[in-house]
């Protein structure tokens, strides 16, 4: 169980998350929807403990630990992975170098280079990426779609158990969206991770059917439901939802 309790967060003197409560069930797929600026990306970054955000109160409990008290590195090593909405490009650091360092630091032994490369190549093929992505600088000079696939390359190499996917569908064409969705579905089949998918659109949710759907507004969860809720939003928009829970499906 991944449990967020009474989480209040601010940045630059502005409250962004306001007493937010959210539970993610182990091995289930959750969708988080909501208009721009409601704090969805903030939630992901706070889960990873981005030091830019100030946690005023609340807990994020996972495997008997409170993530709000842990360093970003340790959160990642506990198996939590964020696929960021706009991943940064890092000049001079290659995918291979970063991943090899992460894996060897985590296991405290050197990575078997032969197996590592072989796995990287297999994943590149699976994501329809050329093999030279292995040694490309992280996200540098990559199109929006390539960046998202590049992040999936990291995902497959690191094999996390909790995945936060922040608007992976934005800026993807139909073909890229299908490859990305297929890849996520295959990952889910293989590892049964807990997934939180953030999206505005139903396209991705049609491809990856979520078990639960949450609607966020002004830094709070205002509605909870099943896949039908996502369809309702597709038809009616977010207008019906207020903090008081109007439009709550349950």
């Amino acid at each position, binding site marked *: 169980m991944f449990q967020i309790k009474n989480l209040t967060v601010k940045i630059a003197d502005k409250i962004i998350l306001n007493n937010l409560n959210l539970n993610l069930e182990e091995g289930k797929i959750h969708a988080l929807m909501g208009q721009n600026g409601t704090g969805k990306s903030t939630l992901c970054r706070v889960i990873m403990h981005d030091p*830019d955000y100030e946690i005023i109160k609340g807990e994020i409990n996972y495997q008997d630990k409170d993530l709000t008290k842990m360093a*970003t*590195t340790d959160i990642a090593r506990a198996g939590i992975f*964020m696929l*960021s909405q706009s*991943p940064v490009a890092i000049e*001079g*650091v290659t995918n291979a170098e*970063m991943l090899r360092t992460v894996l060897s630091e985590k296991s405290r032994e050197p990575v078997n280079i032969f197996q590592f490369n072989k796995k990287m190549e297999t994943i590149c093929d699976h994501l329809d990426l050329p093999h030279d992505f292995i040694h490309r600088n992280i996200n540098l000079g990559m199109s929006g779609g390539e960046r998202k696939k590049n992040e999936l390359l990291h995902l497959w190499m690191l094999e996390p158990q909790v995945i936060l996917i922040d608007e992976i569908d934005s800026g993807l064409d139909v073909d890229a969206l299908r490859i990305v969705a297929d890849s996520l579905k295959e990952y889910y089949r293989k590892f049964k991770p807990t997934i939180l998918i953030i999206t505005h659109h139903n396209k991705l949710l049609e491809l990856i059917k979520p078990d639960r759907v949450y609607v966020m507004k002004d830094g709070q969860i205002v509605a909870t439901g099943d896949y039908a809720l996502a369809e309702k939003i597709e038809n009616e928009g977010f207008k019906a939802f207020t903090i008081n829970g109007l439009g709550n499906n349950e």
Partner: protein
Amino acid sequence: MGLEIMNKIIVANESLAINNTEALLEINSDILNLHCTGNNTILIKEMGNLTLNIILEDDSILNLYCLNYQKNDNHQVTIKQKNNTVINYHEIVINKTKCNLTIKNELMGSNNKSVLFLRVLSLAQEININVLAEAEKNTQDNLIVEDIKGITDGGKIVVEPHLEIWTHDILANHLVTISNVNPADIFYLMAKGLSFKSAKTLLLKGFLLNALDDYKNILIGGEDNE
């Protein structure tokens, strides 16, 4: 040509004339007057407190590569260009103590090109970089490109460009970017599971590798295998 087969010239005097020379200079004096004719490629490993005066005779070329990471005190480089010359000045500095660098470019004639490429990593203290360019009256078709990038991790970099150009017939470009190790990059790498320390190490190494990339042709092989 590779570094291992590059000639080493040990310089004990205050002057040296080079002509179609490719060499690594080991300089044992505080002043060096370097007189260039023909097409030259020169490597200097530490400049320390060197005052380096370069004169490019008509139609000469100098590719100069300097790497300073141990004795970066207060070196001063003057580049005098006559006519139809090219200087490609490349310098990498990594400091732990305060240092001052001055690079002065004097364009005495016409149709010269000067590329001043500096990559600076400040780990502590301060690096002051003064870049001065002067073109004499009645000269024309000169081009100066300053390309300076710096990254700081606990230190500080100050760049002060001064151009004193007496003719309109000159094109000068300044590209100066100085940044700290970017916290967003650190967060990104830590969120993938890297420790803070390795995240920072990878980023600093990345900066230097990019700078060295430019040296690669000289250090490991011909320019035509790009």
